[in-house]
């Protein structure tokens, strides 16, 4: 079942911070299911684009539609995992229960299964914030997936995590995508992008520089800036 929030159409998205256009007219259509990886140098506007999609930032100008819906109307079908997981000052299980109170009431065993899926079943009653960074991010992902989102956004969610957590999160994201959830993921990690991406959106200077299927992007990028980036020549 394809995600009801497709296609995602973004037209002429602009955002000015101070006197700098951090989003300088983004035009983008994402029509295919699967995993879209947004790449680009630091400060290109990747995270801002993701936050606009989620409704965390109101752009100064431009349109976003997801399927037939606006950002606001699609919000309860979206979920987002941030770079730094924010967990409540409660136990792991209570963190899940807080995110989905109805499920916690009607099918509490689903919460336990969610904990199992991120290998945290034995940590259910531990204070979430005493867990390691990788464990916290796994819990945040489990929390995001419990609402069965049609669109899952990940903002450098595995940056600086332990390798085991990274692999576990990647496999869960893949599974989720296979079940029909559209995934959009911002990543700096080229290895991860190669492992996960079905297609890549390359952003530079607040604009879309290139949008290609993954194998094409990594083998033969069209733009010089993407080429330079893949070659590791652009760090900033």
């Amino acid at each position: 079942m394809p995600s009801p929030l497709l296609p995602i159409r973004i037209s002429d998205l602009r955002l000015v911070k101070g006197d700098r256009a951090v989003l300088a007219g983004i035009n983008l259509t994402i029509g295919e299911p699967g995993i879209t990886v947004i790449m680009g140098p630091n400060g290109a506007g990747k995270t801002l684009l993701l936050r606009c999609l989620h409704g965390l930032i109101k752009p100064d100008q431009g349109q976003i539609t997801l399927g037939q819906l606006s950002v606001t109307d699609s919000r309860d079908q979206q979920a987002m995992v941030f770079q730094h997981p924010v967990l409540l000052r409660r136990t792991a299980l209570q963190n899940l229960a807080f995110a989905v109170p109805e499920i916690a009431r009607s099918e509490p065993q689903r919460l336990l299964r969610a904990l199992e899926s991120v290998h945290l079943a034995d940590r259910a009653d531990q204070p979430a914030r005493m867990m390691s960074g990788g464990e916290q991010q796994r819990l945040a992902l489990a929390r995001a997936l419990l609402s069965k989102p049609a669109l899952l956004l990940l903002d450098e969610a595995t940056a600086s995590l332990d390798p085991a957590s990274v692999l576990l999160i990647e496999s869960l994201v893949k599974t989720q995508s296979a079940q029909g959830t559209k995934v959009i993921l911002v990543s700096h990690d080229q290895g991860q992008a190669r492992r996960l991406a079905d297609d890549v959106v390359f952003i530079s200077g607040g604009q879309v520089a290139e949008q290609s299927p993954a194998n094409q992007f990594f083998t033969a990028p069209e733009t010089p800036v993407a080429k330079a980036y893949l070659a590791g020549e652009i760090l900033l």
Partner: protein
Amino acid sequence: MNALAEAFRLIITLDADLFEILWLSIRVSLIALAISAVISLPLGTWLAITKFPGRKFCILVLNALMGMPPVVVGLLVYLLLSRSGPLGWMGLLYTPSAMIIAQAVLITPIIAALSNQVIENLHQEYRDTFYSMGVTGRRAVVAYLVDARYALTTCILAGFGRAIAEVGAVIIVGGNIDHLTRVMTTAIALETSKGNLTLALSLGTVLLVLSLLINALVIGVREYAAKRQYA
């Protein structure tokens, strides 16, 4: 030194008058605290997480009210509760209820302003996640109150300390009536005016010990919270 010895004697002999006064002090301040907390914690939280025009001004007023002299609070509550005042028909003047109201009025802005700052910090952290999870309104307020519980406990204890040490307001609205509205602070004021400085000081020592216990509790709560990553 005499005062210390006298304070010690009053405590170990379970002096009946002392314990009556002490118990009334604690009871009045606890009830005032309960009433104040029910109002001030949600208010402080709501002001921290809701955007509306005039919000900054509200917080400014709240902070200004923190410094309101107790005597002024006492006077306002007195005029309100006076038999010729708007609430005179309730017959509350010169009762412990009047003292409770005065203390509640006095500490509500304090707890609200302190909790507002606590919640504002937490809101910085939680805002995006709560938005993402669609947590708003009453659910958000409750979640903030629950998650900030340890920090808020210290706000509340600060309010209690202020309430129980306060004399200016309660002496006006309570009248310092023996066996009815005489609390630790008004008893100290009375004994001072009678020239019984040693007794006054020993009562003060008892109050100080109470304050020490409260502050020890605050520190204990903080340490516990920090240790368990709840702070």
